[in-house]
C-alpha cells in the first residue's frame, strides 16, 4: 500500500492506493501550526475505515509520500528562522537592492523593493573575491569570517545563508565558509548558494539561499517529528517529500534544499495531471487549480511538465528548478470592486478563509466571486459541500447592492460581470504563460481541480479556444493523488556559456568537456538515487541541454543523448531551429549567428513499483437529473434559465448528457454551459466537450 498525504491550508487530503491499484481517499481538517497532528488524525481515519489499527495500517505501507505547505506558510507568514547572511565584501546591500524590482507599481507611495528575509544588521560582508572565470582575486579571510560568524552566533543566530560572487563557477570559498560555520556551530543550518542554486545571478542566488535558511530549520523539525511519530507507530516504509520540481525526494535532501519544497503542494497536483495525461492519452494539458484566494496554472506539453528555474513568491525570488506554476489572484473569495475609471475589477483582494464570501454568513460584507456564482444559480444554496454548509443568497445580494449602485449595473449584470472578469483574468494568465513558453493554448486540454474551478473551467476554456475540459474523478484530493503517482526524481544542472558555430559545430576538445560535464552530473544523480535502493532497471536517466541563438536569450531545453557527438549536436540545433520557427516565424531565427549552450541538466527518475490504473466503461445511458434550478446557462449572456442538476457522485462511466446543466459533487460543483456536452469516461472523469456550432 502507498499513502499520499497532502497538507493544504484548510484540509489535509489522504489518498491510499491499495495493492490492486484502486484508490481510497479521505479529508480531514489541517491543524496549523502543528500540522503533524492533522496527519495522524487522517491516518487514524483511513485505518479505522479499513477496519485496521493504526499500527497495522502503518506497518503495511511501503511508501508514505508527503506534500506539504509548511515551507510556503513559513514564507507567507514570515515565521521562519532568524538568518545570518554572508556575502562578498562590498555587496552586503545586494539582497536589499533586489535588482530594483518594483513590480509595475505606478503609485509612488506604494513603490518598494521586495522586503528581504534577512535584515541588514544580520548581513556580514566577508573578505574574498573570485572573478567571472572563478579565479581567486582575493583569498578568503578565514579569521575575519570566524569573527563574523561568531558575531552572528552571539546574536543567537543558528541558521546561515552564504552567497559569494561567482560561487557557481568555483565554490571553493563557499565550501570553506560552510565548513567553518559548522566547525563553530555543529548544529547550525547552512544554506550555501552553490548547493541551493548554482546558477548565474547573485541576487537570485542570495534570495534562494536566504529562503532555504529561513524555512529549512522549521521544515527539518517538522519532518523529523513526523517521521519519529510514524516510526513509533510501526511505519517501516520510505518517507518521501514532494519537491517543487514534481519529484519525490528523501527527507534529508528536501531539508537541505528547503527552497525546493515551496511549491510542494501545487506540484503534486500537476504531477497527478501528468499521470492523468498518460492514461487519458492526452499529451497537452493545462492544469487549472482554482481555490478560495487564487488559481494555480501549469502546463504539460507533449507529456512533459513545463518547468522553470526562476519564480517569485510574495516577490521573493526563488531560483531552483521547479514546475512552472503561475498563481493568479482570482479565486472563489476574490472581491469585486469599482475602479476609479468606473470599471469592474475582481481581486486580488480576497475575503480569504475568514470571513469568506458574504453568502457563507461568517460576517463577510464585500461581494466575492462565490457570492456572484450563488446569485447566478450556480452554487447550491442548501446542498453546498454535500449539504455540510448552507449558503445565504440574501447576504450575497446585500453585499452586491453597493457595488451595483457604484458601477450602474443591475444585480444580475453585476454578478455576471464578476463571473466574466474573473474568467478573463484567469484566461489572460494562461494565455501569457503559454505564449511565454511558445505554445498555443488551443492545442491543450484544460484539467480543472480545486474546489472553485468547476464553475469557471468551461468559460475559461471558451475564452482560450480550448475545446475539451476534464474534471478528474478525484478532483478534490487531486494533489494527494499526485503523490501516489510520482517517482523519485533528482535533477542536477550546470550553468555554462558555451558557443557553438552555425550548424552546432565545436572542437573535439570542447565536445570532450561537455561530455565530462554530463558525466559529473550523472554521478551526482546516481549518488542521490543510491540511498533509495531502487533497482537499476527501474531507473531512467535523461540528458538535456538548454540552447539559444548566440546573442539571444530565448532558451529551449532540448533532449540530448547521454554522450554528445558532432552529429548529435547538429541534430540538437536542428530541433531547436524548428521549435523556434514555429513560435516566432521564420524571419526571426538567426542560425547564422551560431548558438549558445547555456545549461546541462541530467535527471534521474527512479520508478517506484505501483499497480496500474484500470478503467472500465459501462453502459451509455443518460443520467437522470435530480432537480432543476434557475441558473446561468450561457456564460456570455446575463440571463438565468431553468437547467438540470445532476448528482455527480451518482454518475457512472459511459453516461453522457448535454449542457446547460450543473453537476453537484459532494465537494465541488461543475457548470456545463449551453453548447457543451458532458460525459463520464472509463476512469470516472467528467469530460466537457464544446459542441461545434
Amino acid at each position, binding site marked *: 500500500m502507498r499513502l499520499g498525504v497532502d497538507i493544504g491550508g484548510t484540509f489535509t487530503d489522504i489518498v491510499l492506493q491499495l495493492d490492486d491499484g484502486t484508490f481510497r481517499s479521505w479529508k480531514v481538517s489541517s491543524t496549523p501550526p502543528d500540522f503533524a497532528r492533522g496527519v495522524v488524525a487522517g491516518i487514524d481515519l483511513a485505518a479505522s475505515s479499513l477496519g485496521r489499527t493504526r499500527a497495522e495500517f502503518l506497518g503495511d505501507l511501503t511508501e508514505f509520500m508527503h506534500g506539504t505547505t509548511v515551507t510556503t506558510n513559513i514564507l507567507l507568514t514570515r515565521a521562519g528562522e532568524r538568518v545570518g547572511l554572508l556575502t562578498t565584501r562590498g555587496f552586503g546591500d545586494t539582497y536589499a537592492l533586489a535588482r530594483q524590482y*518594483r513590480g509595475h*507599481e505606478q503609485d509612488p507611495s506604494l513603490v518598494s523593493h521586495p522586503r528581504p528575509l534577512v535584515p541588514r544588521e544580520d548581513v556580514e560582508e566577508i573578505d574574498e573575491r573570485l572573478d567571472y572565470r572563478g579565479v581567486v582575486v*582575493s583569498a578568503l579571510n578565514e579569521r575575519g569570517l570566524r569573527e563574523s560568524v561568531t558575531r552572528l552566533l552571539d546574536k543567537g543566530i543558528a541558521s546561515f545563508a552564504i552567497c559569494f560572487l561567482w560561487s557557481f563557477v568555483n565554490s571553493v570559498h563557499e565550501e570553506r565558509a560552510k565548513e567553518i560555520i559548522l566547525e563553530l556551530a555543529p548544529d547550525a543550518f547552512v544554506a550555501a548558494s552553490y548547493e541551493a542554486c548554482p546558477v548565474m545571478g547573485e541576487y537570485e542566488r542570495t534570495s534562494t539561499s536566504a529562503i532555504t535558511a529561513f524555512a529549512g530549520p522549521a521544515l527539518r523539525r517538522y519532518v523529523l517529528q513526523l517521521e519519529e511519530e510514524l516510526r513509533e507507530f510501526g511505519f517501516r516504509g520510505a518517507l518521501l517529500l514532494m519537491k517543487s520540481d514534481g519529484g519525490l525526494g528523501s527527507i534529508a535532501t528536501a531539508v537541505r534544499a528547503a527552497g525546493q519544497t515551496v511549491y510542494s503542494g501545487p506540484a503534486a497536483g500537476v504531477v497527478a495531471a501528468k499521470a492523468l495525461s498518460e492514461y487519458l492519452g492526452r499529451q497537452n494539458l493545462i492544469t487549472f487549480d482554482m481555490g478560495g484566494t487564487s488559481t494555480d496554472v501549469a502546463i504539460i506539453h507533449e507529456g512533459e511538465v513545463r518547468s522553470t528555474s526562476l519564480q517569485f513568491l510574495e516577490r521573493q525570488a526563488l531560483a531552483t528548478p521547479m514546475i512552472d506554476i503561475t498563481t493568479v489572484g482570482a479565486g472563489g473569495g476574490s472581491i469585486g470592486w469599482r475602479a476609479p475609471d468606473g470599471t469592474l475589477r475582481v481581486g486580488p483582494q480576497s475575503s480569504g478563509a475568514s470571513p469568506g464570501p458574504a453568502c457563507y454568513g461568517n460576517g463577510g460584507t464585500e461581494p466575492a466571486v462565490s457570492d456572484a456564482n450563488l446569485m447566478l444559480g450556480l452554487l447550491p444554496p442548501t446542498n453546498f459541500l454535500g449539504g455540510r454548509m448552507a449558503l445565504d443568497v440574501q447576504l450575497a445580494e446585500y453585499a452586491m447592492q453597493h457595488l451595483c449602485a457604484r458601477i450602474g449595473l443591475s444585480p444580475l449584470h453585476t454578478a455576471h460581470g464578476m463571473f466574466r472578469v474573473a474568467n478573463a483574468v484567469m484566461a489572460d494568465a494562461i494565455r501569457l504563460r503559454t505564449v511565454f513558453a511558445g505554445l498555443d493554448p488551443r492545442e491543450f486540454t484544460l484539467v480543472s481541480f480545486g474546489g472553485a474551478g468547476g464553475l469557471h473551467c468551461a468559460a475559461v476554456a471558451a475564452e482560450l479556444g480550448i475545446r475539451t475540459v476534464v474534471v478528474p474523478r478525484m478532483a478534490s484530493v487531486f494533489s494527494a493523488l499526485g503523490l501516489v503517482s510520482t517517482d523519485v526524481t533528482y535533477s542536477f544542472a550546470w550553468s555554462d556559456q558555451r558557443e557553438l558555430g552555425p550548424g552546432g559545430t565545436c572542437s573535439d576538445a570542447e565536445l570532450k568537456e561537455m561530455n565530462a560535464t554530463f558525466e559529473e552530473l550523472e554521478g551526482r544523480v546516481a549518488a542521490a538515487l543510491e540511498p533509495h535502493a531502487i533497482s537499476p532497471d527501474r531507473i531512467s536517466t535523461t540528458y538535456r541541454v538548454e540552447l539559444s541563438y548566440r546573442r539571444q536569450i530565448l532558451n529551449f531545453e532540448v533532449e540530448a543523448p547521454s554522450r554528445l557527438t558532432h552529429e548529435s549536436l547538429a541534430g540538437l540545433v536542428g530541433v531547436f531551429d524548428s521549435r523556434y520557427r514555429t513560435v516566432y516565424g521564420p524571419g526571426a531565427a538567426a542560425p547564422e549567428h551560431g548558438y549558445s549552450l547555456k545549461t546541462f541538466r541530467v535527471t534521474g527518475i527512479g520508478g517506484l513499483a505501483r499497480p496500474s490504473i484500470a478503467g472500465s466503461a459501462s453502459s451509455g445511458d443518460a443520467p437522470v437529473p435530480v432537480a432543476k434550478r434557475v441558473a446561468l446557462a450561457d456564460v456570455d449572456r446575463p440571463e438565468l434559465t431553468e437547467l438540470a442538476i445532476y448528482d455527480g457522485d451518482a454518475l457512472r462511466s459511459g453516461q453522457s448528457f448535454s449542457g446547460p446543466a450543473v453537476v453537484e459533487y459532494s465537494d465541488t460543483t461543475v457548470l456545463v454551459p449551453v453548447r457543451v456536452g458532458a460525459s463520464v469516461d472509463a476512469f470516472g472523469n467528467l469530460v466537457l466537450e464544446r459542441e461545434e456550432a
Partner: protein
Amino acid sequence: MTSINPELGVLADPGRPDMIVDPVLSQIIYNYELTMNREMGRAVVNLSGSFLFVSASDFSCGCLDAEGNILTTIAWSLQMGYAISNTVKTSLKRFDSINPGDVIFCNDPYDGGGLHAHDVVVVAPVFSDDVLVMWVGVCAHVSDVGGALPGGYSVEPMDVFGENIRFSPVKIYDKGEFRRDVLDAFLTNVRVPDQTGVDLKALMGAVWIGRERAAGLIEHYGRDKVVAIHAGQLEQSGRAFRERLVNLPDGVYEGAAHMEHDGANDKIYTIRMTLVKDGDHLEFDYTGTDAQAPGVLNCTEVGAVGNVMAALGTIFAPDIPFNEGLLNPVSIEAPLGTLVNAIKPAPISGATVYAAWFGTDAILEAANYLIADARDLEHRRTGPWGCWTFAWLQSLNQHGEPWFWNVFTGGSGGGGALPHHDGENAILGIQTIDAFTPNIEDYEQQSPVLFLQRGFARDSGGAGRFRGGLALESFCVPYMVPGWDVVAFHNRLSAPSSTVSGGLPGSGSTISFARGVLPDIETHQQHSTEAPIATYLGDLEQAPTRAKGLWVDRTDGYYMRATGGPGNGDPIDRALDQVSSDVRDGAVSVELAREAYGVVIMPNSFDVDEPATVELRDAIRRARQELPLGSSVWPGTPPTDPGPVGPVNEQLLGEHLGIDSSGWYLCRRCGYRYCSNSVNWKWYAKCDQQPVNRNAIHNSIKERPQGDLVVRLYVCPGCATQVDTEIALITEPPRWNYRPLALRRVAP
C-alpha cells in the same frame, strides 16, 4: 443604470453610440491588451538578448487606437510608453495609405519618433476587413544608432545632424513585404550592425506577435465593439481624472527643475512649470523655461507631453488606466525653441535623461502644493527621485571584442520621501515603472570590469521628517584590460532637486576617479592573499560634468554615486527612534544625525541622548529665529499686501503651510499669519539663503564656483519650523508656488 445599445448589445453611454462605457467588457479588454503588451515585451527580451533589454528592461510596448492614442503600455518609463503614439500619429498624417501588413519604423524625435534617436519605434496597424481598427507598437533603446561618439550622446555643443542617424517614419514592411533595403540603409550607419540588427528583428517579432493577438481580440468581440470599447476606455480615464480635478483647489501652482552644463558652459538651465487648475481643467504650462541649449539638454515636443503623462501616471492618477484619455481634461503649453520643445538643429540625443526627465521634476514641485489639500492624493507628495548620471566606457573587452558600455548604477537614485514614510533606497525614477538593474555577475561576464563595491551610500538621503532614500554607490576597476576610455555625463552634480515641506535635497551624483590607488589586480593576487581590495579606495578626483577622452587606468578606481532622494518635512521633527535606527542600520552617520537632525546619538549603543538632543534642537530653533525675513534677503522692495483676493477657501499647501478661511497664508502649526494670498508668503517668512554646498544641504554635493545657485530654507517666524525649501538662481525672486486663480496673469 446604464442604457443598452441594441446594435452592439452592450451597455453604452447614452447619446454616444460609437462609444461603449461597459464596466465589464472594458476591463476584460484592458487586461487582455495589457497582457498582450507583456507578451510583446517578452518577445523583445527573448529575441534580442540585448543587455539593455534583458538586464535593464529599456523598452516599452503598447496598444493604441486607430488614431494613435495610447490605450495600454508596459514601459521602462511612462514617457517612453507614451512616445509610441507619436509614430502612429505622424504616420497617419504622412503616408498616403496605411495598408494591412505594413510595419512602420521611426527613430527621429523631430519627426514622429521617440524621445531620442536611440529609441527606435516600430508600429503596426491592425486591420479587420480592410478597416483600420487599432495599432500595436514597441519603442526600445537599441544597441547603437551611430553618430560621432560611442553610446551616441553628444558631449560638446553639436547640432542634431552630428548626433545620430535618424529615420523619419518609413515602412519596413510594405503590405507584408519585408524591406531589407530599409534595414540595411539603417544598419550601415551603426557601429555594431550585428547586434543592432538582432535588436531590430526582435522589435519586429514583438510587433508581429502583438498584431496576431490584436487580430484575435477583434475576431472574438467584433470590430465595431472593440472600436467602441476603446473609445469608451479613453473617455472613462478622462472622466475619472476630470472628477478628481473638480475636487482639487483652483489656483496657479509653480515649480522648477534645474539642469547644469550645456557641454561648453557650466551654466544653470531651468525648466519651469506652471499648473493652472481651474474647475475640471488642468493646464501644464512650460512658459518661462529657458531657451534651447547648444548642448545635449533638450527634448522635442514628444518629451514635453511625455513628462506630463509621467506625472499623471504616478502622482495624479496611478490608479486610473494609463491611457491618453488622461489628457482629455488637460492642456499643455510648451513654447517652441525652449528646452522642452526644441527646434532643429538643437541636439536632443540626451532627451531621455535631460529635458524629458527633468520636466517631470518641475511638475512634481508644482503638484506638491496642488495635491496637498486632497485626501486621496496628498500621500503621494514627493520630490524628484533619481536621475541619470552615466558614462560610456570603451575598450576591447576581455574576450578581445570591441566593447562600449554604460554603468547603470548612476541612475539608481534614492526615492523621494513621502508624507508618511521614508523614500526607497536606490530605486531609479518615479516614472520608471518597469525598469530594473543588472546583477554584478551580468556586468562582469561580458565586460572588462571588476566591482569592489555596490551598495547604498550612507548619508546620501535628503534630510527631513521623513528621509529621502539612499543613493546607490559603486566602485569598480578595469579588469584584464589596460584601461577604459570614458565619456562622462552628470546630472545633479551641483544642482540638487526640489524637496517637500522643508525637507533637504539628497546628495548630488558623482563620477570620480581614485587615481593610482590600486596595485593592478595581478599584483594584488600575488602579494596580498587576504587583504580586501576595497580598502584601496582613496582620494577621489571629480570628473568634469560632461567630458570625453577621460582615461581610467588599471591602477585607478572608478567611483560612481547616484543622487539621494529628497527629504519631506522639517528634519528636526524627525522621530528620535527613526534617527537612531538609521544610525544602527548604517543609513545615517552619528555626525549627520547631529548636524542635520539635531539628534545626539551615543556612539557605542547608538541610543539617543535625549537631554542633549532637546537642547540641540532648541538651539537650532533659536538660531533660526535670528534669520532675516525673506524681504530683506532679496534685492528690491517687497510687494505691498493689498489684502486677500477671493474666492477664499481654507486650503492646505504643505505639511505646515496653508491658507486660512480669510485668505491668509498661515503656519498651521502655530497659527502665525505670513501675509494675504495676494502676495508671495515667502517675503514674510524667515529665510536662510546659502549657495548650494555641503553645509547648506547637509549632504555631499559639488559646490558651484559661480555661486549662481542657492538653496533657500523658509522658516516660520512664529514657531521656527522649517516649512519649505527652494532651489533657485541667486538672481531670481522667490518662486510663488501657489497663488489664487484671480492672480493668474500677475507677474510674480
